[in-house]
């Protein structure tokens, strides 16, 4: 059923197809129409929902399931949600979940084998994967998805499961209007304003949404919604709210020369210090929207004649992760934390031409002992105190490693 705007300002009716460069305005109730449209189209709509005292991502059937009135507070090792009674549906920041769990599922079957008369035959499963519409994707999360695209789709090998899920996924982004104390997207240049990588992007006003489309799919959804063009007042309200989020961001990560800083300080005493606090429990890597480590294990039936190969999320913090016939390569917490941080913030540039960090702050909030990577980097930026000065390991310079094959 169509719902019409009830606002009193003069509106410009949309006679033609919505354009991608224009901002439109829809009433909040139109979000329900959008959800219904998507469901009719065969999408499983996933969005934010309050479960177990946290805002998680789960299937959404109705607008009423969204966290209306909820706010969150986040600090290192601490997360709280609170019902404040306000009217907004999206006035919070990223929680324990990320879209990674839908595009790169925690468990997935990659292959199977069957034995008949002592001969094995192998199959890769048919690429029948669910079709998701993500509702409420934040700017830092768009950046995270773009990073995982580079890993799973744009490298020398393509992951079939990620590809099938990613290509069918529809993304409805939401601009942040508030920031948590753990957010630092401005440092990583990934937000808070959504600029690229969505089908539709929303900014939640007091009484409606400003909406934009970036793709043909998004534009065709807008066409069905028949929105009004946004007026200056709407755009000004959106701009003020978006600016509020920017101003609330207090955490910073100085990324100046960060790759060489970290790779040039592999023997910095701070690695020893952080290893006394780090639990090596894997939480930071699990909540990170870009971490992609996995392991494939065997699931065997009783007879042993049928085998499934199951890929599961794994972590560089696990002792067995670096196991080789000659022993375990990273056999203490120090080397494992160092691997994680230097990969995320330094060698990621060599591998994927960007940082592996999007500044979402999840690893800070969800570390059970509140380790804050921005503080670790800041500490490494400080020269080691003189009595503990260690030689800095010289590494091949950036261009040398970047090209992998050293130029002649």
């Amino acid at each position, binding site marked *: 059923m169509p719902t019409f705007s009830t606002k009193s300002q003069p509106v410009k009716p949309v006679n033609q197809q919505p354009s991608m460069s224009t901002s439109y305005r829809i009433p909040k109730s139109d979000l329900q129409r959008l959800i219904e449209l998507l469901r009719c189209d065969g999408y499983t709509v996933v969005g934010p929902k309050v479960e177990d005292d946290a805002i998680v991502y789960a299937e959404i059937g109705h607008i009423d399931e969204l966290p209306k009135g909820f706010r969150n507070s986040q600090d290192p090792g601490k997360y709280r949600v609170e019902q404040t009674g306000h009217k907004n549906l999206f006035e919070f920041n990223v929680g324990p979940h990320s879209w990674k769990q839908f595009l790169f599922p925690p468990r997935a079957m990659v292959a199977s084998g069957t034995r008949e008369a002592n001969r*094995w035959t192998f199959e890769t499963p048919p690429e029948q994967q669910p079709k998701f519409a993500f509702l409420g994707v934040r700017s830092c999360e768009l950046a995270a998805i773009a990073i995982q695209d580079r890993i799973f789709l744009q490298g020398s*090998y393509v992951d079939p499961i990620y590809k099938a899920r990613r290509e069918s996924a529809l993304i409805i982004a939401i601009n942040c209007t508030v920031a948590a104390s753990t957010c630092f997207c401005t440092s990583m240049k990934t937000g808070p304003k959504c600029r690229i990588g969505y089908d539709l992007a929303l900014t939640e006003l007091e009484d409606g949404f400003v909406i934009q489309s970036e793709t043909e799919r998004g534009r065709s959804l807008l066409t069905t919604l028949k929105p009004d063009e946004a007026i200056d007042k709407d755009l000004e309200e959106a701009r003020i709210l978006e600016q509020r989020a920017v101003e609330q961001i207090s955490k910073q990560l100085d990324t100046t020369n960060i790759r060489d800083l970290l790779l040039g300080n592999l023997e910095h005493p701070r690695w020893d210090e952080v290893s006394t606090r780090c639990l090596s429990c894997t939480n930071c890597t699990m909540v990170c929207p870009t971490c992609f480590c996995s392991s494939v294990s065997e699931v*065997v039936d009783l007879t042993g004649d049928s085998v499934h190969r199951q890929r599961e999320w794994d972590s560089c913090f696990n002792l067995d992760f670096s196991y080789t016939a000659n022993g375990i390569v990273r056999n203490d917490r120090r080397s494992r934390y160092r691997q994680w941080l230097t990969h995320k913030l330094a060698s990621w540039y*060599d591998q994927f031409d960007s940082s592996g960090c999007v500044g979402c702050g999840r690893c800070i909030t969800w570390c059970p002992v509140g380790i804050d990577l921005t503080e670790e980097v800041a500490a490494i930026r400080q020269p080691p105190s003189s009595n503990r000065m260690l030689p800095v390991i010289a590494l*091949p310079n950036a261009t040398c490693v970047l090209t992998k094959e*050293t130029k002649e």
Partner: protein
Amino acid sequence: MSVVNRASLPNQLDPWKTSTVTVNRLRAHTSGVFSIDLSFEDPDVGKQFEFVPGQFNMLYVPGVGEAAISIAGTNVSGMLQHTIRTVGAVTTAIEKGGVGMSLGLRGPFGRGWPLEPVTNSTAKVSTSTKNDHPKNGDVIIVAGGIGLAPLRSMVEHIGSRRAEYGTVSIVVGARSPGDLLYQDEYEDWRSRKMKVICTVDRASLDWKGQIGVVTLLLERLEISHPSLTTFMTCGPEVMMRYAAKSAINRGIPEAQIYVTLERNMNCAIGLCGHCQLGPNFICKDGPVFRYNSVSALLRVQEL
């Protein structure tokens, strides 16, 4: 099955696609090391299988798991050969399974050895030879223990294009004379004008060769055109570091020194994260690396 003369291969559409292979022959070398010849169940898949010396396959024992095993070459009938050290569940299962065992295979993966000799025009350092008549590049191969396996197909490659290379020396080190791999092939290699010298840590009574580490042999090896020499080594990391150091001391340019590295490999396609060393994924950026791109990383403990 064929060895190709390209540095890289087109990638498979589905990296998890697994082919069925059968163990046709199992040859025990020394304690805990054996070679297998594999035939593809589907002959067409076998015919299309191409690899670069130095690449590896993932051998899969269903229910047990996968192991990354470098390709040791092909036998006279074109069957794929692997030489395996029994260290974990997968390799133990293959050894136990023996001839007739049905296995899965994914591959080939990774970057192999350089397939062209260094020539005057490609040499990095200008030398007095530059103005002389063109000279074919020399090769020094240094292998420790089972490290000879991924170099064997390289030796075959050089042997098949022998005229394009200058002096070729193969230095093989092992713990004891019985641990020297492919001894029955050394005469063939020598007949193709490749120098093969062996050294062992512990000699038996009838041993007439050298005793001691490979670097001792390297120091005595005549290297007449260091700037035109490609140096390839595979073996324990410590051995490779010392061998590379010795090569550098003898004037071989660092960019012409190649080493192979080993880390935990799970997916073989750079997507699982296990095999990282600094910026490198050993499985797809290696396992063969130019020494100067990894030497600094190898000096850091537990990286």
